[in-house]
């Protein structure tokens, strides 16, 4: 005989009880292990979705800049045939299909102009790449348009323009183009093109694939050979380049950073000035080379690199800014004027070839003499002096356009004071000051200008035309560069050209060649890549300065910090912004997921796990109670209490292992069920049907270990309960320490006092809240004090109810149980509940706690769709939210702006016109980024950023729009204008986006990777609470332009309008602004879609919590069984004296019902009290019916389960039981 044999013998002998314990452990292991498997499955599914989404694409270069298509071939030449370099144009657009007078529209279409190279990366061999006017739609888009193969669809796109549309010379008239296409194929959701996208998201995009050649032709990016009118040949251009392997079997399906690094190095080697929309113009006449941009303005990065290259090559440099002045006149004689003259801001160099100017009179201006608002010191040429009849010291007036925020061009009037008159010869006689602008500088006369704004051609004089004929864009006015930049600098930059010249007699062609090489080295990041590779080897990734102040070596923080450098390396963003991103690596990294579904499902299953644990504890305890005298015997014969406990713990451990192993198998089943749930009942939580079950043995082992630890804890707890019981009591069958009458009285008194305190607190807080003493201000996390107080009231009520039960069960009821029949049995049953108070209160507490959470969660459901616009709420008082695929430049609040945007209200009925005229539109600038709302479960790094214009910000401030959380300042909107150290940019974001998607809080930083922008660091300054801004970040417009100067116009709008007219207004705007891809929806609906995720999570929690509650009721029936077993003798006696089986049934069921009803009632009452503020709001959407069914079901199951105990009580043989007693 040894301990092991004793344990095995015991396990076999008490197999019924042990099987019940094992089942409890199986349940716990299944739930915990299943949660881990769900987490793995979601992660692996996301990972597979990333791979499926990208197909053969490993790396991508995509951005706003258009570069040569030839670059694709140049790169392909560096690689084997296994790899494909695919050129493409990626643009947002909108698509419509008309059939039978009904128009179907989709506003957010990702348009891909592609050829067979890209298509080979899509790995869709059954379908040919689109050609001519074909379009291939993905299933989502085809369904939205109700389109089938062969249908004709209309695609509207913004025409990319070199000169920004919202700059002075930008083309505002021809903004969009329409392509009529035939649907040649539809790709299904489970194919790569069906879900292709660069941003990690599990939602399917609306994709349209068109022929690259056709698209280039349509939007003016096709190859243009040199002609007499356009002597410069233009290469075909693209804005995206995809790199990868078409064949699945190709080695390395996943590009590592080293691969992308090599790709970027090759890219840097092949970039030309044309790719950067730059050109070097040699001016043989004046002996210099000028760097100009097709944008007309050199962006600040380019300007800085241009001047650095010149300094490094020891060249003379002359930066220039030119501006077009509409009209110059003599204020003393308005008949003396000059139209459409160029003014140049220069440094008035004194050395050739840029100077010196030859002055007829006076000299250069002193920039220090200029004061804001005062006359501008300037030099004019002798032609203008003659035209205006002015001399040195005279003042002349000017009018010029200033570019407004909303595309408007207000004409400003400013005065200049003449400090000198320069001869129209030498360096002042140079039309090369002004960069070439197609349609303007090459026009033969003013009448031939491509008018960037309405020109007053009737005012153009013969003198003006003569000047144009002879001198063209030669400036008539010169002013200090500093002054000119202050007047005319735009967000796109401040210089229009940088002129360079050799200090020696080096031929200009050689100068141009060397300069181009050096400039490209700086712009392409080639110089930096060399340094970067050194940094890579040393394993450092940090912001550093290379070559003095020339270029910043910037790693992409945040994006890769979770991945080792060995696999990702450094990604260095060059000033050109042209950079391949390892999209597949990034996609796989993002597949780690923003939400920890393991944690989520363990949380959802909390009550299930708790109930399983309780059940394990209760069942094991039941087993111990049946063997309590055995415990006593073992102690009596000399086994130390610890040895006895160890024997029982060993039994528990064996049961745990058996249950854990079986539970591991059940975990797979549980996880499969949860995955099925996520794809069906809880589809809203994840929003994809591409989930699959992925079982990793490590997770099952982990689940087994966790569940085993918890189960052993439950076993230990139940064994430990016998610690205070003496051996003699154990021998006598007593399993718990007995309290004497005095102790019981004292305990009851303590419970009573605790109950009174809890109810007193609840009442006091309730009165305080009702009477307005409790403030409505925010307490924390977006919750105001009223909400918090009610929650405390609820919890106090829960504690009060349960302590009241504890008190009631301890009350010494001297009064006899009177009466007859079932009633008397019920009363006796209720009295019985007090016999084992701890047990009764524990089970009632479990049921109450589970009910509290389930009811509170259900009561917390919101339906914003029924909420009215309220300024201090998540909808900010707005009715509609709209987005466009093409930026809108104009102010939709004004008739003029609406007209310019193409809205035509003629013929619209007056009611609708009134709605349009009364609407208030808040436009936002948009830098598209990743979707960081709760609708996206991928890990996002940089969400879409909205720039808030100053007037919109003022409205937000004045009206106290939106609700903030944890943002403890009087006016949170002011935070967007705050100055932060180290140039950090303050941003606001929605609490859900920040906490759950980006995992950031107030004060945290978000790094913006430089990509054709200088990059920067954002600092979270405030959090919006449950707002329509979920998934985006907000920053001031000025900061927005600092980071994203190339983002023109507005693409996001909040519209304040009569909610009753919202649908009509939405429809009208979508129709009238169809060219912009205007897509409006109710703010309430947008919020509802965000909340759908939350509500789905609540449903999941409720379902699993309900299961936990059901399991808890089984625990209660176990308690009942224990009670019955303990009282076998009494029950036998009752039956011996004539009680029927029915009486005994009532006795047991009454006790069971009391505990269940008390638990359910206390939990429900407390939850409803806690959720009162929400229940009284309009958005409350409590599923009362479902809740009632759930609670009734729990009660019914609990009562049915108790019938097991009843059966045991009734079948107990009377005689033998009485004898045993």
């Amino acid at each position: 005989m040894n301990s092991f044999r004793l344990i095995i013998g015991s396990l076999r002998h008490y197999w019924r009880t042990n099987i019940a314990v094992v089942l409890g452990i199986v349940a716990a292991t299944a739930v915990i292990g299943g949660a881990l498997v769900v987490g793995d499955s979601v992660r692996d599914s996301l990972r597979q979705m990333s791979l499926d989404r990208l197909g053969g694409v490993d790396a991508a270069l995509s951005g706003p800049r258009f570069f040569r298509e030839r670059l694709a071939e140049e790169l392909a030449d560096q690689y084997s045939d296994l790899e494909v370099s695919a050129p493409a144009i990626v643009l947002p657009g909108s698509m419509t299909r008309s059939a039978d007078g009904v128009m179907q529209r989709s506003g957010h279409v990702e348009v891909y102009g592609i050829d067979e190279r890209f298509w080979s990366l899509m790995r869709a061999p059954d379908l040919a790449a689109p050609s001519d006017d074909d379009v291939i739609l993905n299933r989502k888009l085809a369904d939205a348009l109700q389109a089938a193969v062969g249908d004709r669809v209309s695609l509207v796109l913004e025409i990319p323009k070199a000169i920004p549309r919202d700059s002075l010379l930008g083309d505002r008239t021809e903004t969009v183009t329409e392509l009529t296409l035939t649907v040649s194929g539809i790709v299904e959701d489970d194919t790569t093109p069906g879900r292709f996208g660069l941003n990690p998201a599990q939602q399917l995009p609306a994709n349209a694939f068109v022929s690259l050649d056709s698209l280039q032709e349509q939007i003016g990016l096709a190859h243009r050979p040199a002609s007499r009118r356009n002597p410069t040949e233009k290469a075909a251009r693209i804005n995206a380049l995809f790199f990868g392997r078409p064949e699945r079997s190709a080695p390395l399906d996943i590009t590592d950073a080293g691969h992308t690094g090599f790709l970027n190095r090759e890219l840097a080697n092949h970039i030309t000035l044309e790719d950067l929309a730059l050109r070097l113009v040699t001016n043989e006449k004046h002996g210099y080379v000028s760097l100009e941009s097709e944008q007309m303005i050199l962006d600040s990065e380019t300007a800085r690199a241009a001047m650095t290259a010149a300094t490094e090559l020891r060249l003379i440099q002359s930066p220039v800014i030119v501006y077009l002045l509409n009209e110059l006149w003599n204020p003393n004689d308005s008949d003396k004027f000059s139209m459409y003259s160029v003014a140049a801001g220069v440094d008035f160099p004194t050395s050739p070839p840029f100077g010196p100017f030859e002055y007829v009179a006076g000299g250069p201006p002193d920039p220090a003499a200029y004061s804001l608002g005062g006359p501008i010191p300037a030099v004019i040429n002798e032609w203008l002096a003659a035209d205006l009849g002015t001399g040195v010291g005279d003042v002349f007036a000017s009018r010029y356009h200033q570019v407004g925020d909303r595309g408007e061009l207000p004409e400003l009037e400013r005065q200049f004071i003449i400090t000198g008159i320069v001869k129209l010869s030498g360096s002042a006689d140079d039309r090369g000051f002004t960069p070439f602008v197609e349609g303007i500088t090459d026009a033969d006369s003013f009448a031939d200008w491509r008018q960037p704004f309405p020109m007053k051609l009737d005012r153009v004089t013969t003198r003006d035309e003569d000047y144009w004929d002879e001198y063209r864009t030669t400036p008539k006015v010169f002013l200090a560069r500093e002054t000119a930049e202050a007047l005319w600098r735009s967000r796109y930059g401040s210089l229009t050209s940088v002129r360079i010249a050799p200090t020696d007699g080096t031929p200009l062609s050689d100068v141009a060649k060397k300069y181009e090489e050096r400039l490209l080295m700086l712009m392409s990041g080639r110089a930096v890549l060399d340094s970067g590779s050194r940094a890579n080897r040393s394993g450092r990734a940090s912001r550093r300065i290379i070559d003095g102040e020339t270029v910043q070596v910037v790693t992409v923080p945040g994006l890769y910090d979770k991945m080792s450098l060995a696999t990702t390396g450094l990604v260095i963003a060059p000033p050109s912004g042209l950079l391949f991103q390892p999209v597949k690596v990034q996609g796989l990294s993002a597949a780690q997921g923003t939400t920890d579904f393991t944690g989520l499902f363990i949380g959802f299953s909390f009550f299930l796990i708790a109930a399983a644990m309780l059940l394990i504890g209760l069942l094991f305890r039941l087993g111990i109670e049946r063997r309590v005298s055995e415990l006593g015997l073992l102690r009596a014969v000399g086994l130390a209490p610890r040895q006895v406990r160890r024997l029982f713990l060993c039994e528990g451990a064996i049961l745990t292992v058996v249950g854990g192993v079986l539970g591991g198998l059940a975990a797979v089943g549980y996880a499969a069920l949860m995955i099925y749930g996520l794809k069906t009942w809880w589809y809203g939580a994840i929003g994809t049907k591409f989930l699959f079950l992925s079982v990793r043995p490590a997770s099952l082992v982990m689940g087994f270990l966790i569940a085993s630890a918890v189960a052993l804890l439950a076993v230990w707890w139940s064994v430990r309960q016998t610690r205070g019981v003496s051996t003699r009591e154990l021998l006598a069958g007593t399993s718990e320490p007995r309290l004497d009458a005095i102790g019981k009285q004292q305990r009851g008194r303590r419970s009573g006092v605790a109950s009174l305190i809890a109810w007193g607190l609840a009442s006091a807080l309730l009165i305080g809240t009702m009477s307005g003493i409790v403030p409505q201000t925010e307490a924390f996390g977006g919750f105001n004090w009223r909400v918090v107080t009610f929650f405390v009231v609820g919890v106090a009520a829960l504690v009060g109810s349960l302590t009241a039960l504890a008190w009631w069960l301890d009350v010494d009821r001297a009064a006899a149980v009177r009466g007859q029949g079932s009633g008397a049995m019920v009363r006796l049953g209720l009295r019985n509940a007090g016999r084992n108070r701890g047990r009764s209160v524990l089970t009632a507490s479990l049921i109450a706690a589970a009910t509290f959470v389930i009811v509170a969660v259900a009561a917390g459901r919101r339906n914003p769709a029924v909420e009215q616009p309220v300024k201090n709420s998540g909808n900010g008082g707005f009715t509609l939210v709209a987005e466009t695929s093409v930026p809108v430049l104009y102010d939709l609040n004004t008739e003029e702006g609406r007209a310019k945007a193409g809205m035509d209200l003629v013929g619209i009925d007056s009611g609708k016109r009134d709605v349009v005229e009364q609407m208030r539109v808040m436009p936002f600038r948009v830098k598209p980024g990743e979707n960081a709302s709760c609708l996206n479960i991928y890990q996002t790094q940089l969400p879409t950023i909205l720039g808030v214009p100053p007037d919109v910000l003022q409205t937000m401030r004045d009206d106290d729009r939106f609700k903030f959380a944890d943002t403890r300042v009087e006016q949170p909107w002011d935070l967007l204008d705050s100055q932060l150290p180290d140039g950090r940019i303050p941003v606001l974001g929605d609490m859900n986006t920040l906490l759950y998607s980006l995992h950031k809080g107030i004060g945290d930083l978000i790094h913006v990777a430089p990509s054709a922008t200088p990059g920067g660091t954002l600092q979270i300054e405030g959090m919006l609470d449950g707002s329509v801004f979920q998934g985006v970040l907000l920053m001031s417009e000025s900061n927005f332009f600092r980071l994203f100067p190339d983002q023109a116009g507005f693409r996001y709008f909040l519209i304040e309008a009569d909610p009753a007219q919202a649908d009509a207004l939405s429809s009208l705007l979508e129709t009238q602004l169809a060219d912009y891809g205007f897509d409006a929806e109710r703010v309430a609906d947008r919020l509802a879609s965000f909340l759908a995720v939350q509500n789905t999570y609540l449903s999941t929690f409720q379902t699993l919590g309900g299961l936990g509650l059901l399991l808890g009721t089984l625990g209660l029936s176990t308690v009942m069984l224990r009670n019955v077993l303990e009282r076998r003798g009494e029950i036998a006696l009752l039956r011996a004296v004539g009680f029927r089986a029915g009486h005994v049934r009532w006795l047991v069921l009454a006790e069971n019902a009391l505990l269940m009803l008390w638990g359910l009632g206390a939990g429900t009452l407390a939850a409803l009290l806690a959720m009162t503020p929400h229940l009284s709001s309009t958005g409350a959407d409590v599923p009362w019916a479902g809740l009632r069914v759930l609670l009734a079901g729990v009660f019914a199951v609990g009562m049915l389960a108790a019938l097991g105990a009843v059966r045991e009580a009734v079948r107990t043989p009377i005689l033998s039981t009485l004898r045993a007693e």
Partner: protein
Amino acid sequence: MSDAADLRVSGLTKQFAGAAGTIDVLTGVDLAMRRGDAAVITGPSGSGKSTLLYIIGVLDEPTAGEVNVAGTIPFRLGPIDQAKFRNESVGFVFQDHHLLPQCTVLENVLIPTLAGTKRTSDVESRARKLLERVGLQNRLTHRPAQLSGGERQRVGLCRALINEPLLLLADEPTGNLDQKTAESVGTLLLEIAAEQQAMLICVTHSLDLAARFPRRYELTAGKLILVDS
């Protein structure tokens, strides 16, 4: 005799707290015994007989007084040493034999050895001999459920004696048995205790059993009175 006693109980008192106040169960019990002695304690129900027995067997604690077993004062020991003391020096025979239903007869007898350090073969051999002594040599592999009441009590007796205790304490050992079986169990109890040189203290209501003991005490009003010697 008392000076050379192997068991000396002196001034033992036991009180219980109740709703109506303190109840004095034992009010100063004195008892002395030597190895091989056998004594029976009788008294009315609730007089404290079993309490006294459990205190002597270190399953309960006295309110005051002392128990000294062969120089060891068990109530001065810690819980682990108390268990060891009980295992090595005390053997219990209960009215409800408390046999483990999952164990065989032999295993039940061996249960106390689980806490000891004796060689398995030695204790098994002793168990077999004890069982043979009580006539159960053919029931070694039987389960308690397969035994009669008298047989179960004999197994309980063997279990009590397996570690060769100094003290053999029997609480109503024949209380659940018919007269014939009780007689046989009583005989065995006395014989084996004498053979093992154990001090036997038996608590019983049975006058027949009590009459067979050389010394009989009556527990009355919390005091132990020698009635017959």
